[in-house]
């Protein structure tokens, strides 16, 4: 896999982890047409997330939960320790209280349900990039 050059810092550079190539392609399409995001590429598993993130310096990593290989929660936990400047946002169709809790416990700055639509996804990512903590509607309903 070839990743483009690292983020410029002015735009929100995003690295995505999702084993569904269709979703990754759609995300690339989505971010590529927005002026405030920069698409850094995608990984089909979290195995090399930490290494790639340390290399590419994304501002945001958008991580699916249901992945083959390395546990994504463990990966974002390690990433938060190695580079606290990178902010992880979980992106999943599975939204349950224990998953939201686990993600936040592992160091995620946000949680987005794949069912909440692209507007909410972008809104959460923009808030997190601005230093805020954010959940999409469905994830918010599952968090107390």
């Amino acid at each position, binding site marked *: 896999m070839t990743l483009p050059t690292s983020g410029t810092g002015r735009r929100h550079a995003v690295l995505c982890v999702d084993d*569904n190539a*269709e*979703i990754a*392609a*759609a*995300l690339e*399409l*989505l971010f590529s*047409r927005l002026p405030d995001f920069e698409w850094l590429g995608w990984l089909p598993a979290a195995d090399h997330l930490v290494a790639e993130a340390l290399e590419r310096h994304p501002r945001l990593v958008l991580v699916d939960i249901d992945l083959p290989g390395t546990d994504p929660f463990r990966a974002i936990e390690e990433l*938060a320790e190695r580079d*606290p400047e990178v*902010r992880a946002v979980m992106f999943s*169709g*599975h939204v*349950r*209280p224990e998953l939201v*809790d686990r993600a*936040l*416990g592992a*160091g995620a*700055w946000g949680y987005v*349900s*794949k*069912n909440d*639509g*692209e507007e909410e996804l972008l809104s959460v990512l923009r808030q997190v990039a601005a*230093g*805020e*903590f*954010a*959940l999409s509607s*469905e994830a918010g*309903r*599952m968090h*107390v």
Partner: protein
Amino acid sequence: MGLCVLDRDLRFVRINRRLAEINGLPVEAHLGRTVAELLPDLLPSVRAVAERVFAGEPVLGFELRGTTPAAPGVERTWVESWYPLRDAAGAVVGINIVAGEVTEERRLTEELRLHREELQRLVEERTGELRGLAPPPPGVGADGLLGTLSACLGHDMGNLLMPLRVRLDTLQALDLPLEVQRELDGIRASATYLQRLASGLRLLAVDPQQAAQERALEVGRWWREAEAVLRNILPRGTQLEAVMPDEATWVRISAPALTQAVFNLVQNAGDALKGLPPGIVTVAIRPCGAEVVVRVSDTGPGMNAEVQQRCMEPFFTTKARGISTGLGLALVYGLVQEAGGVVELESAPGQGTTFTLRLPRAEPPLGRGAPGRCAYVGMGNPRLRAYVAAHLRQRGCEVQADPDAARTADLLVVEGDVPPGARGRVITLPADAPFGDVKQALRAALEELDAPMVTT
């Protein structure tokens, strides 16, 4: 109570009227005659007991069974106590007998036992059928199969729809001929409908207990998510009509719980209309004082009095086994009761059925916060600071991180020392603690502060 005295030859020496009636002969016909002559059917049992009494042992409270001339062919039961009758020298010369008939009591007890066995058998049979339908996966309540299917379908549809929407957006941003744009609008309408269906399916999959923390639900928004899945369970031709409140109305029940309750009622209404000319199922919601009233009614054949009385019982069903578990209405009852509401039923043969759920009305979740209230968050970890700030903003607070704001803040959330000059309420959270501990401590502290925050 029957009384008599027998001599050593088991001859009646004395007998009262009651025992004579039990035996079916007049008093006079007994005297001087033996048990063998008058009650031959009882003789073997009488002899066995008499032997023990003549040996000097009273035999108390035993059951004697057999037939008498009073009711030939009918087995009767007596409880009797036999005492040795002694002469002046102490020798046993006869038997004093006290007898009471318990035939009817024994019959009723036996009938009850058989009923219990039958009931137990039915419960086991139906529980077995229910288990056979599907193993209930964890966290999806009683209707396991439905939960699993809904969760999988909802998830997969969500995964498929996301790329579809993004590609549609890309296409619609292009300068395409009008007729192509129209086609794209049609595809988008279908995608939107499927998205709602997926949302409804996910609401069915969530364990309502798990989502119980969702304290206030806006019914209009809920209906937009749930409508598609409800519409899809009705038979072809059946109309689903909705009457929703004009103004935003908040109810104290979780979205999955309300969906699962209404889903079961709409499904039942649809089943009632099957095989009949197309009917109408109406879901009407309106606020009424401190309650929100949810009515699900149909134009079906209605229920008779017996079905009305029993329909909330677990395992009760009028449908074929395998189609119905008999748990749907029991689940509705449980969900509504859990939310602090009640279920009412109106129905009559030929008049349709209306289920009414009276649920507690809720305040809008942000309305009771403190809009404009200023909060200061002084925490070292930027992510935890952001987390706490998001919580407070959700409660209507304006959040400041600037230490100068600490003096004027109404609420301060800090990890260590309180900034000098601060006059607001203070929540102290554990420093360098894991996320879970911070979350618990914050929640507990805010709950404690909740009442005063509402009243000021």
